[in-house]
């Protein structure tokens, strides 16, 4: 008989942190009649087990005898319908990745217990006090269960297992040649292809020429390969661009006549790749070609860096979306044969206190998204043992339906150890996770706009990661690389095998048999196997002679490996399922067959709300508001949930200062494996508010900030590589594309001015949401610039915390009346104004500061960004637990800076606040010859920030401890 056993493991060890945290969350929901909760783990085992077996499993595998107890039962249908209003039980949908269940399944076999057929897990929540069924439903839907991956029951749940299924070899032929335009469009919608009519017609023509109709495998392959996500059509297509205003491009005063028209061959080529070519840094090893950009580190090692986004999945299932986002970018780095050594993350959410009525239906509340995303990053990065060292979190209303999750990863490898040359005859090996239905249509789905129904129609695209499988894959790949066992490698990301095998074999041709692919459960149709985006898989090209050794390595690290095909040399993409050929396409059609269309782009300067600023503003109160703004507030609560110390390389931590709570400008790492004292710094620049005014200014400011950050911690400004990540709206709309053009132009101009190459980039478009009423909402154009800079000697790096009373304080850089998009204006309800303008000779300032750092002239250094001089000086005081006395009247300033608020809160580019010991003042000033600088004051022992205004009277005086308390007591997750 096929029994299902239910084992509940409950807590009996006194205070349980899980239960306490849940109670707090109930209070936040406004449910205050519950006075206690408890949380238990549930395990469901199906199979002919004996009571003794169940007892043994519970005691040996499931229960900690010191703090836990267990009870078990056989599930019967009648019992499972018991309704208990005081409890909620949550389980996974069948097929959702559940590593605990997988481990339990295998361990039971090792206990010598046979017959176990299936395992699934769940969680039981019990509430003490009075609570209605309605409140239980609310708790379940708003806190405990996401119906994209889970299901809940009030009372005892009935576990769901993956249904039994026979293997399927069913392949449909799609009679595309017969279809008219309407039918083509319908086909695209029904199969979730997200292909345009142009593209469908191109496919139609290609198959006319082949004199047959495509199989479902072929059609899906083309849809994936041609998706925006995989192909980046918008960045490769020609554009006709018009603009009607905005700041002139730096160095091009008469850039475009008003209402003129510009033909742009392609954003990627014209602006990003061109910049890298023209900057021509000899240390760039690979830019825009591989899975990650690569630069030289020293004579022995190279560094790779990639930043990805995982926005759409994170909107639907925040934990799984962010989790697999981290996993995906780590695989990009493994995919250039490197060992991952650092992770970064930049997150954009709607404000956490957004009222429920403002959250569109079909969208999760920002608080829930933020918590899930942070937990997902924590889970993957920590378990992989990769330190998460750098990042930012921003909050803005328009991220409500489209949160942004940028995940980055840095890797290290011996120079030149990444092979990229699959040979005919090499076998195709898949390494790591098994293939399931998870993530079908991920590539096409992430290339489309979200709607209020997306969660229900494409729920299968969202997955949970399994970091330990990826960790094992990473160890095996590094070992295989060291032994030179493979001739090419890539990761399985969006588009699954279709994309990975298709791209790897582009120049050679491949022959794959899908019947060999190891599956999580039977029943997948061939196209599903080919398209699945199941996580934690790498694809390698391996000379046959090396297979045995590869197998030995995989056995050591517990990695499953399978030969699924061969590289052929005939330039065909051929896919079989056993004896049946299910796809047979020329590589040229797959990779080059997509129709190029000229896109329309227009940029008009926008009308923006003006800030409402009273005349009697108290600057101290404004500073407090700035510090209490979640963009500026301490991110310590999040940073500490990421392991930023593992691998022993983090020499400048994300938190610095007297009690390790100051916000470091950037992290510095010195890998244990490298010799000497050279390290590298990771920074980032991002400010969507400037982008609302002018994306060109935003791009410059982001590049300037990304460079400032790493220069602050000692990076050599001549050795900084940049990454671009564009998150935009629908590029088919000319205004969205127009702003993208302006941002790309800003990237190009800034990269040239700073002589900093782009080595990698990615775009995530269609970040739009259509609600139930058809209203469209888009994100502000958001450009993230990430920076990777070489630090010649990590022992010379300063940090941003004030060090000692009596030291002098300098402001380097010119302050101009640039409050457009600033935090100061946002605090006053408007954006309008001049955004920070480019500083074309900023590199000279960076060089001078670097020289001063190398000569030990600087004790503390912090850049000025959001909140300007006021916030920077407050942060330095807080981090050092010291005071400052400064006077604004001596600052180098533009003609528009006539009041203290502008002087304190302007966000002009290329500015730094610097602490210098008096005996180094002469040398420091000499280092800054011909550059804008001023001595503003000094560090004092008394913990007070005291600022004299342009008229020399005291305009702001605040106790540093008060500033700290405000800055540290903001809800950020």
């Amino acid at each position, binding site marked *: 008989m096929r029994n299902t056993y239910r084992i509940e493991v409950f807590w009996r060890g006194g205070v349980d942190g899980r239960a306490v945290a849940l109670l707090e969350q109930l209070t936040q929901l406004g449910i205050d009649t519950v006075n206690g909760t408890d949380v238990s783990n549930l395990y469901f085992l199906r199979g002919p087990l004996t009571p003794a077996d169940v007892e043994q499993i519970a005691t040996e595998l499931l229960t900690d005898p010191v703090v836990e107890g267990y009870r078990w039962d056989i599930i019967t249908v009648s019992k499972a319908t018991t309704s208990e209003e005081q409890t909620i039980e949550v389980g996974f949908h069948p097929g959702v990745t559940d590593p605990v269940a997988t481990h339990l399944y295998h361990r039971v076999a090792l206990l010598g217990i046979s017959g176990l057929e299936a395992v699934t897990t769940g969680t039981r929540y019990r509430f003490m006090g009075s609570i209605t069924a309605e409140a239980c439903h609310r708790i379940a839907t708003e806190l405990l269960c996401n119906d994209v991956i889970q299901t809940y029951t009030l009372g005892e749940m009935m576990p769901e297992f993956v249904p039994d299924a026979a293997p399927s070899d069913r392949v449909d032929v799609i009679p595309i040649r017969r279809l008219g335009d309407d039918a083509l469009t319908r086909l695209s919608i029904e199969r979730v292809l997200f292909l345009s009519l142009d593209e469908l017609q191109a496919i139609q023509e290609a198959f006319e020429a082949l004199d047959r109709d495509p199989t479902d495998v072929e059609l899906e392959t083309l849809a994936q390969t041609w998706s925006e996500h995989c192909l980046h059509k918008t960045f490769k297509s020609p554009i006709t661009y018009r603009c009607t205003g905005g700041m002139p491009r730096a160095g091009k005063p008469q850039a475009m006549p008003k209402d003129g028209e510009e033909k742009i061959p392609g954003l990627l080529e014209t602006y990003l790749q061109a910049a890298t070519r023209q900057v021509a840094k000899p240390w760039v090893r690979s830019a825009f070609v591989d899975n990650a950009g690569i630069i030289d580190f020293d004579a022995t090692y190279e560094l790779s860096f990639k930043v990805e986004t995982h926005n759409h999945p994170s909107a639907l299932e925040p934990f799984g979306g962010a989790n697999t986002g981290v996993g995906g970018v780590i695989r990009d780095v493994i995919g250039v044969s490197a060992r991952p050594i650092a992770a970064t993350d930049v997150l954009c959410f709607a404000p956490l206190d957004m009222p429920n009525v403002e959250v569109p239906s079909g969208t999760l509340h920002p608080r829930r998204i933020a918590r899930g995303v942070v937990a997902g990053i924590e889970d993957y990065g*920590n378990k992989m043992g990769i330190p998460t060292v750098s990042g930012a979190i921003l909050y803005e209303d328009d991220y409500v339906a489209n949160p942004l999750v940028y995940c980055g990863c840095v890797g290290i490898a011996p120079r030149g150890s990444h092979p990229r040359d699959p040979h005919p005859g090499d076998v195709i090996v898949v390494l790591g996770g098994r293939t399931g239905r998870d993530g079908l249509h991920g590539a096409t789905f992430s290339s489309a706009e979200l709607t209020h129904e997306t969660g229900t129609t494409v729920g299968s695209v969202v997955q949970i990661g*399994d970091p*330990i499988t990826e960790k*094992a894959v990473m160890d095996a790949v590094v070992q295989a690389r060291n032994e030179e066992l493979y001739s090419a490698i890539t990761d399985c990301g969006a588009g699954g095998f279709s994309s990975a095998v298709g791209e790897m074999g582009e120049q050679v041709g491949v022959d794959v048999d899908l019947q060999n692919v190891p599956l999580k459960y039977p029943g997948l149709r061939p196209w599903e196997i080919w398209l699945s985006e199941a996580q934690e898989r790498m694809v390698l090209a391996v000379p046959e002679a090396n297979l045995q050794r590869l197998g030995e390595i995989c056995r050591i690290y517990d990695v499953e490996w399978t030969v699924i095909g061969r590289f052929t040399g005939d330039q065909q993409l051929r896919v079989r399922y056993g004896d049946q050929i299910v796809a047979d396409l020329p590589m040229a059609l797959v990779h080059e067959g997509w129709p190029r269309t000229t896109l329309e782009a227009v940029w008009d300067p926008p009308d923006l709300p003006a800030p409402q600023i009273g005349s009697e503003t108290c600057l101290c109160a404004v500073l407090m508001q700035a510090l209490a703004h979640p963009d500026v507030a301490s991110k310590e609560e999040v940073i500490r*949930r990421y392991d930023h110390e593992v691998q*022993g390389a983090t020499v400048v931590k994300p938190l610095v200062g007297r009690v390790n709570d100051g916000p470091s400008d950037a992290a510095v790492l010195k890998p244990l494996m490298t010799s000497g*004292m050279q390290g590298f710094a990771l920074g980032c620049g991002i400010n969507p508010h400037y982008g609302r005014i002018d994306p060109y200014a935003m791009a410059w400011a982001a590049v300037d900030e990304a460079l400032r950050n790493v220069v602050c911690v000692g990076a050599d400004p001549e050795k900084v590589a940049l990454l671009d990540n564009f998150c935009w709206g629908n590029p088919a709309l000319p205004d969205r594309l127009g702003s993208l053009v302006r941002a790309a132009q800003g990237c190009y101009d800034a990269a040239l001015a700073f002589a900093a190459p782009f080595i990698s980039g990615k775009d995530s478009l269609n970040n739009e949401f259509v609600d139930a009423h058809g209203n469209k909402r888009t994100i502000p154009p958001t450009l993230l610039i990430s920076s990777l800079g070489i630090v010649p000697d990590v022992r010379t790096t300063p940090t941003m*915390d004030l*060090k000692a009373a009596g030291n002098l304080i300098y402001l380097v850089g010119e302050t101009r009346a640039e409050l457009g998009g600033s935090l100061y204006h946002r605090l006053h309800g408007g954006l309008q104004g001049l955004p920070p303008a480019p500083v074309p000779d900023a590199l000279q300032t960076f060089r001078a500061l670097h020289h001063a750092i190398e000569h030990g002239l600087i004790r503390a250094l912090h850049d000025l960004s959001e909140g300007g001089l006021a916030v920077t000086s407050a942060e330095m005081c807080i981090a050092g637990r010291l005071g400052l006395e400064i006077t604004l009247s001596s600052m180098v300033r533009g003609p528009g800076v006539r009041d203290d608020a502008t002087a304190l809160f302007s966000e002009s580019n290329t500015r730094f606040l610097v602490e210098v010991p008096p005996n180094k003042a002469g040398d420091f000033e000499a280092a800054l010859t011909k550059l804008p600088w001023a001595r503003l004051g000094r560090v004092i022992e008394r913990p007070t920030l005291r600022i004299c205004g342009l008229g020399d009277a005291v305009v702001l005086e605040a106790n540093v401890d008060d500033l700290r308390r405000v800055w540290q007591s903001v809800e950020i997750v």
Partner: protein
Amino acid sequence: MSRPRVLILQATGTNRDGDTAFAVAQAGGIPVVLHVNQLRGKPSHLHAHQMLVLPGGFSYGDALGAGRLLAIDMRWLFEEALAAFVAKGKPVIGICNGFQALVKSGWLPGPPDGPARATLTRNVSNRFECRWVWLAANPDSPCVFTRDLSDPITCPVAHAEGRFVPRDEVALTRLQDAGQIALTYQALDGRDPSYPDNPNGSTADIAGICNDTGTILGLMPHPEDHVLPEQHPRRTRYEEGNLGLPLFTQGIRYAAGI
């Protein structure tokens, strides 16, 4: 004195093996990193080494509780070999996940055949936390790793399940009486440590314990991540010292003498 061979035992999901190998080399040992699967069927490999380290990480993803599945591996794959290794007095240190495995397998507080006397469970804060802590060694402990350790150690913790809970008062008293509480969390200013000095809510601020003979040590914090002056979080404020390195140096010196 020859340099002892120190076995750093990896399991799938272990991730501080590299940091640990570096610390061992820095302390004068020869680090040998092996995967548990390489001991499968060949437990005698253990005896080619003078010291054993179970490093930090997430063995088996902490599925079914941190350290539990690795503890089962230890019992099934090389229990006898490990018992012989310990019986010879060869030192064993488990850090973070390694400590969890030593506790879940019963080697700590020991003896492994009795009922569990203590556990490591979820932090009171209910979250993973990475932060630097201060550790003081118990001068009355028989622990061979903390012997002659007079300066406090500062190093990071990075865990979600590091709260040390003895089974009951009796178990705690027994640990105290036998000097098995080798390391405790400290507050810098001499106050009784509270959160976050004690980062996880451990009973009696226990950061590390040893077995009754002092040759097996387990601790939650990561001394292997503070073995170089550059790793100090306040190096730019000219703070230095209080390295975690002496724990390894002491253990390796002891191992070399066996």
